[in-house]
C-alpha cells in the first residue's frame, strides 16, 4: 500500500506520461470490477487531456484552424504531457505553447506558426489582464523639464508588444472563425510590429511603425523616457516625441508615472 503522496505521484505519472512502472504500482492499489484498471484510469486520463485541450483551443483558436483540429489535438496532447499546467487558473495555461510549436518537428516548416501563437497568447493576456485606472497628463505637472528623461511610465496591464518577420496579423485575420481575409498571403510580404491592448473591454491590436514600436516597447519594459526616446530617434531622427507622449495619455495607456533615481530604477 502506497502512502498518499506516493500514490498521487504514481497517479500523475500514469496519467500524464503513461509511465509503465507507475501504472503497475498504481494498478495494485485499484479494484477492477466490471472495468479493468486501465479502463478506469482512462476515464480520468481522458478528462484531463480533453479539458486541457479545450482550454488551449479557446486560447489558440487560430492556431487550431491553421493546423486543423486533428493535428492541433495531437500537438496539444504532446504539449500537455511535457508541459502540464502548474496552477488551476487555466487562462494562465499555455505560455510555453508558442515556443513548443516552434520546436515541434512536425510543424517546423510552418515558419510563422510560433509567432501567430505568440500573438494569440498576448491577446489572451490582454483579455484577462487586471483593470487599472488611466493616469492624467497632469501627473507630470511637478516634473522639472530636466528630469523628464528619468520618467518611468507604468502602462496599462493589457498592453503588449510583438514583432515578427512574418505577416502574422494578416495570417491571423484570414484564419479567424469569421474570416473575410485574403485567400493567399505572400509570406515574403514583410513582417509586422504589433501592439495588443484592451480598449473598452475588447482586445484590439494595431500595427506600429518602427520608431513608435521601439518607443512604446521600451516604455512598457520599464525603460526611462530618455532611453525610450533615444531608441526611437536612432531609427527616425524626426520622431515626434511630444506627440508620442500625448498620444499615450490620450488613449489611457499610462496608469502611473514616477522618476527613476539613477536612470534605471523607479522611485516608489
Amino acid at each position, binding site marked *: 500500500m502506497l502512502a*498518499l503522496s506516493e*500514490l498521487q505521484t504514481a497517479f500523475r505519472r500514469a496519467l*500524464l506520461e503513461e509511465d509503465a512502472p507507475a501504472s503497475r504500482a498504481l494498478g495494485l492499489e485499484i479494484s477492477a470490477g466490471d*472495468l479493468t484498471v486501465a479502463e478506469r484510469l482512462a476515464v480520468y486520463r481522458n*478528462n484531463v487531456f480533453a479539458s486541457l485541450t479545450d482550454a488551449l483551443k479557446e486560447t489558440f483558436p487560430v492556431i487550431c484552424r491553421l493546423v486543423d483540429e486533428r493535428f492541433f489535438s495531437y500537438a496539444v496532447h504532446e504539449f500537455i504531457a511535457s508541459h502540464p499546467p502548474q*496552477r*488551476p487558473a487555466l487562462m494562465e495555461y499555455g505560455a510555453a505553447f508558442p515556443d513548443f510549436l516552434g520546436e515541434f518537428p512536425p510543424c517546423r516548416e510552418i515558419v510563422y506558426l510560433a509567432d501567430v501563437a505568440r500573438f494569440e497568447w498576448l491577446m489572451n493576456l490582454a483579455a484577462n*489582464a487586471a483593470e487599472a485606472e488611466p493616469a492624467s497628463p497632469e501627473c507630470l505637472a511637478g516634473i522639472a523639464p530636466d528630469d523628464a528623461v528619468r520618467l518611468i511610465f507604468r502602462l496599462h496591464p493589457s498592453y503588449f508588444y510583438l514583432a515578427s518577420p512574418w505577416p502574422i496579423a494578416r495570417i491571423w485575420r484570414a484564419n479567424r472563425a469569421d474570416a473575410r481575409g485574403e485567400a493567399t498571403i505572400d509570406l515574403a510580404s514583410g513582417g509586422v510590429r504589433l501592439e495588443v491592448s484592451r480598449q473598452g473591454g475588447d482586445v484590439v491590436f494595431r500595427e506600429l511603425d518602427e520608431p513608435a514600436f521601439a518607443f512604446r516597447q521600451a516604455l512598457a519594459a520599464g525603460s526611462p523616457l530618455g532611453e525610450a526616446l533615444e531608441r526611437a530617434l536612432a531609427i527616425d531622427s524626426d520622431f515626434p516625441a511630444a506627440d508620442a507622449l500625448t498620444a499615450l495619455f490620450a488613449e489611457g495607456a499610462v496608469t502611473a508615472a514616477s522618476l527613476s533615481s539613477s536612470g534605471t530604477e523607479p522611485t516608489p
Partner: protein
Amino acid sequence: MNQLADISAQIPAAIGVGLRAPHVREVETTRPAIGWLEVHAENYLGGGPSLVRLEALRRDYPLSLHGVGLSLGTATGLDPGYLERFKDLIDRTEPFLVSDHLSWSVADGIYLNDLLPLPYTEETLDIVAKNVAAAQHVFGRRIQVENPSRYLQFRHSTIPEPQFLAEISRRTGCGILLDVNNIFVSCSNFDLDADVYLDALSQSPIDEIHLAGHSRVSRGGAEILIDDHASIVSEPVWRLYAKALDRFGLVPTLVEWDKDLPPFDTLLGEARAAERIAETWMSEHACAV
C-alpha cells in the same frame, strides 16, 4: 472565528444556476428571476473585466464561489499562493458559500485539471482535515466540501465515502456540498445504495446541493456513468433530490451545466424543475414544522 459559526441564516434557501462565460451577457441583460449564482473561482482569479462584470451581477444576486483547484486531498498540503488569490476573490465578491471537492488535482506542483479520487483511509482523513482547516483559516470562514463522482475505488480504502465526509465535517466544522448527481453516478458505478449514502449523512450539516446531468457510456462491454454536466438532470437524480430534501430539508440547490452548453433558457428550465420539486416538498411539510 465567528465567521465559522452557523451561516445558514445568511443562505438563500432557493434554487441557483451555475453561471458560465457564454451565458453572462444574457444574465446581464435579462436579469432572470433566480435565487443565486455560482461561478468557478478559477475563472476570476486574474482580476480582469470578467471579474468586474461578476461584481456588477453580485449586486443583484447572492453568489457562491465554487473551486475546482484547491486540491483539498493533496498529501503535501495546499498551495499558499493559490489560497491567497482565492482569498482576494472572496474579499472582492463576498460570496455566501465557498466550496471545493473531496478530491485532489495537484501532485508535485503539477495541476491535472480533474477531480481525482482519494483512498478513504485514516491517513487521508488526517490530510484532508488538515487541508480543509488550513483553507478555512486563510479564508476566515467555513467552507463546503463536495462529494466527487468516482470511476475507481482503492483496495485499501477502509471508510465509506459519506462517513468520511461526515468525519471531515466533524473535525473541521466545514459544511457539506451534497452533489446528488455524483451520489447517483458513484453508487451506480460501484453498486452502492444511494439511500444508505444519504442516511450516513443524517447528522451532518448539508449547506448546499448540486444537480447536473451525466451520461452512460460503454467500456469493454461494461457500462459506466460519467458525470459530464452536458445534459439535463436525469429522472432518477430528480427522485434522489426529492429524497435528499426529505432527509435534509430545503437546502440552497444549484443546477450546473458545463459542456455542450445549451441556451440559457434550457438551464433556467432545469432550475424551474428543481423549484417545483422544492415547492412540492414545502407544501407537504408546511404543517409539520
